[in-house]
């Protein structure tokens, strides 16, 4: 059975921790990290595999740090 799977890659050094992407994600794939990046911001990170690659988070990210991948994968 074919299934759409997505994934996001976050440039954590450029993330400013505004949390706008958290509100935009329909599957709560993103959460804020406990660690901070070199500028002292808690950055966004992917926490589960529910991502469908809908690009919502990447569209609202003011700094454009999110790259979205989407692929059709075949599962048994």
């Amino acid at each position, binding site marked *: 059975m074919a299934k759409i*799977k*997505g*994934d996001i*890659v976050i440039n954590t050094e*450029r993330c*400013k*921790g*505004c*949390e*706008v992407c*958290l*509100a*935009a994600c329909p599957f709560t794939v993103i959460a804020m990290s406990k660690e901070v990046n070199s500028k002292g*911001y808690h950055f966004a990170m992917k926490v*589960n*595999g529910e991502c469908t*690659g809908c*690009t*919502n988070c*990447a*569209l*609202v*990210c*003011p*700094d*454009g*740090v*999110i*790259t*979205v*991948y*989407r*692929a059709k*994968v075949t599962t048994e």
Partner: protein
Amino acid sequence: MIMEDTFAKTEIHKPENIVYKKTDLMVDRPLSYCPGCGHGTAHRMLMEVIEEMNIQDKTIGVSPVGCSVLAYDFLNIDMLGAAHGRAPALATAIKRMWPNHFVFTYQGDGDLAAIGTAETIHACNRGENITIIFINNGIYGMTGGQMAPTTLPGMRSSTSPYGRDVATMGHPLKITELVAHLPGVYYVTRQAVHTPNHVRKTKKALRKAFELQKENKGLSFIEIVSNCNSGWKMTPVQSNKWMEDNMFPFYQLGDIKVDGKLVEKKEIAGKE
């Protein structure tokens, strides 16, 4: 979950599977804006439209005075910096010198609706074939959150700490509705960039504005209602909520003038 992640990295992380990435027309350097500011999204949508239309070498932007004064550091196109509020005048000159180039101004509300009111209204009245992008956050963001002409009644700012009192400070200026009544203006719309849906609509509006410029139809004016979480003293998510609850009932989103004709009031989309 660990197995799934390994699978995702090997199977999905291929260049042909990328569905969204930051456009290459944005210079690869950190934006100077506050976390959560709508300027970044507006910049990116603008550059995506320019990338889609393949007009990078034919576009000239005019940056204002305000937070986005450094827009030329981030947008990889030809840019000029105008004196405070004078961006439409400068854009007029550029467009008349190079009529086949795409010219836009990118201005905030302190720049466009306060010191630049005369330039804005006269450029609109002349019907110059340019695009004006107006970012309205109801406050002077760069200088420390002072009251702007677009500040809402009762809204607190650093120079109206008890809220804007319309008896002494006047009413907020809806300059977008004002210019929509001028015959030289062809397309007027008001959008936002705080949710994915609104971002997509904003991109469509920007695309339409540049297409109209190609057809020499006249001036297109796009207002983007945005947040200023630093100036409003809120977190980015709170400020987006506050904007939906307070800004949108006054600054109603939607098209105001399409194809040179005013849109009927009932058709304007209200609070979404």
